[in-house]
């Protein structure tokens, strides 16, 4: 199989059990961080809201003279805090979307690196390690280093050590957190894309008017074809005129008086694609014009 060289830096091989490579794109560090901050903001908002409600209800319960009321509130607050801190991520990532609200907002989801099912224990493991990656560095940061001397140095060393885990994703190409490493997961992009118009649909109609010689169809390869496809999709007049002029010169095409640029380009697109696909069937893939 000839591999296409369209590879972007985020594209990764991801082979399904059926043996087809889905070529998923991993989420880059910026998207991951943004998604995390979004989730953190949601957690904070819930906690702040809960605290405000708890205070009001606590005041009410206290006024009613019941110590028990305040006690129940305190228990609920402690448990909600614990559950949010430890299971917010796990619960959302176990759902069908395999993503927290933050991740969903950025079109990300968690997937198993080996192409199999995403397992509950993997999700649990990847999120339990957040303790090491988020909460430990945070609590270190909050604990003051005002003792000076050896204590201060210890604090700085501890911070550097904790920083290793915080910035772990930046030091590997798959942007794996320590949690991803242990859980066997990674975070991939799952964009939605509509099926766009086949640009050959219009061009094929015009092939009756435009007859290209085989030699004229040998000028370009797949890469140029894809550029032409996007030019036709954008339908910008100036660009189309320039491209049409360029192609006619290259293939030695004499333009008729009333040829529209768009008609010429789409006809050439259809003809070129037909030619290249014919060769593709014979097992010859021509990547670009330099590839012979």
């Amino acid at each position: 199989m000839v591999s296409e060289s369209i590879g972007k830096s985020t594209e990764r091989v991801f082979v399904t059990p059926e043996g087809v490579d889905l070529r998923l794109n991993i989420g880059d560090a910026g998207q991951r961080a943004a998604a995390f901050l979004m989730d953190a903001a949601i957690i904070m908002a819930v906690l702040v809201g809960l605290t405000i409600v708890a205070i009001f209800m606590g005041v009410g319960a206290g006024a009613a003279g019941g110590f028990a009321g305040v006690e129940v509130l305190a228990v609920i607050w402690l448990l909600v805090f614990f559950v949010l801190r430890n299971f917010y991520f796990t619960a959302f990532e176990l759902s069908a979307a395999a993503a927290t609200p933050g991740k969903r907002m950025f079109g990300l989801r968690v997937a198993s690196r080996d192409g199999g099912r995403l397992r509950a224990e993997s999700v649990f493991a990847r999120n339990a390690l957040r303790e090491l990656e988020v909460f430990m560095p945070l609590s270190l940061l909050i604990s003051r280093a005002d003792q000076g001397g050896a204590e201060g140095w210890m604090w700085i060393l501890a911070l550097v050590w904790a920083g290793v885990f915080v910035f772990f994703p930046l030091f590997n190409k798959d942007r794996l957190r320590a949690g991803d490493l242990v859980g066997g997961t990674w975070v991939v992009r799952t964009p939605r894309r509509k099926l766009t118009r086949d640009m050959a649909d219009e061009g094929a109609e015009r092939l009756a008017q435009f007859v290209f010689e085989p030699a004229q169809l040998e000028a370009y390869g797949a890469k140029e074809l894809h550029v032409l496809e996007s030019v036709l999709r954008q339908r910008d007049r100036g660009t189309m005129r320039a491209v049409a002029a360029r192609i006619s010169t290259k293939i030695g095409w004499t333009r008729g008086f009333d040829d529209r640029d768009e008609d010429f380009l789409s006809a050439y697109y259809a003809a070129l694609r037909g030619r290249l696909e014919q060769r593709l069937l014979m097992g010859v893939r021509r990547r670009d014009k330099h590839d012979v």
Partner: protein
Amino acid sequence: MTDISSPYTLRSQRFRREREADWARLERLMDKVEKGSAAKLTDDEILAIPVLYRSTLSALSVARETSLDQGLVEFLETLAARAYFFVYGSRATLQDRLARFFSNDWPASVRSLWRETLVSGALMLLGAVVAAWLVSIEPDWFYAFVPADLAGGRDPAASTETLRATLDGSEDQPGLSVFAAYLFTHNAQVAILAFALGFSLCVPTALLMLYNGTMLGAFFALFASRGLGVEIGGWLLIHGVTELFAVTLAGAAGLKIGWAVAFPGDSSRLDAAVSAGRTAAVCMGGVVVMLFVAGLLEGFGRQLIVDTGARYAVAALTGLIWAAYFYGPRGRAFRGL
């Protein structure tokens, strides 16, 4: 749309036209699923998805090899990926999962961690013995091992009578449930930290286990020096059997990961980490449950059961239950890991 019989129609155009309706159907179904209404799918639709998914996947392979319509290939890639995540997504209900977790996965993972459990338990014991020995020769060591807010006045400066009073459970009756909740969340957090620290090559987890042991040993030595050894034993063990076991298991889970990362053996470092991580994570899920039980025992059981003999009985009972659950003989339905 052009006439299908046009002589100029490309093979790839025909390929696309013949299948377009199927793809559109799969896309509609995926839109529906991703909106969270997977439960609303009819039986027909559920049966259709895997078929459509496989035909889309094979269309993708064909398109990559024969079509130069870039929009088509990109569309098929994203559609196939979306369908893949649905078809291979986990669809076990929460109930099934919980049942499997308690009947099989959790005890199996704890069993497979027996070596790490012994090491982690031994470390804690070592910490306890050393601290007890140090405190018994020089009581001031106590302050080095136990932070003041945790000791809550139970330190060498306190009189024997005060120490005895802290053991009978009468002191903080009103705030019991808050106390229980606090203990549970605090201990669970320490356990999860012990687990997470394992990733950094075992050492911090081992230290945490040692340290946990020293606190225990220091307390014990302090009370034993006043002739309250039996009472402190009951006071600690009523919940301690569950709690210390849970913390030991958390440490074991951490050690397992750290060891796999440091010494992966025949498999690659990544693979070793993943397989160790899965076993350890199952174990950790169970540890949280155990700590919840321990929190209840500590917050309620200890304050309500004040007789030392009864405390020892509860401790022995919980110990027996856990041991039988994890290590007792299993029926044939038990599949292990």
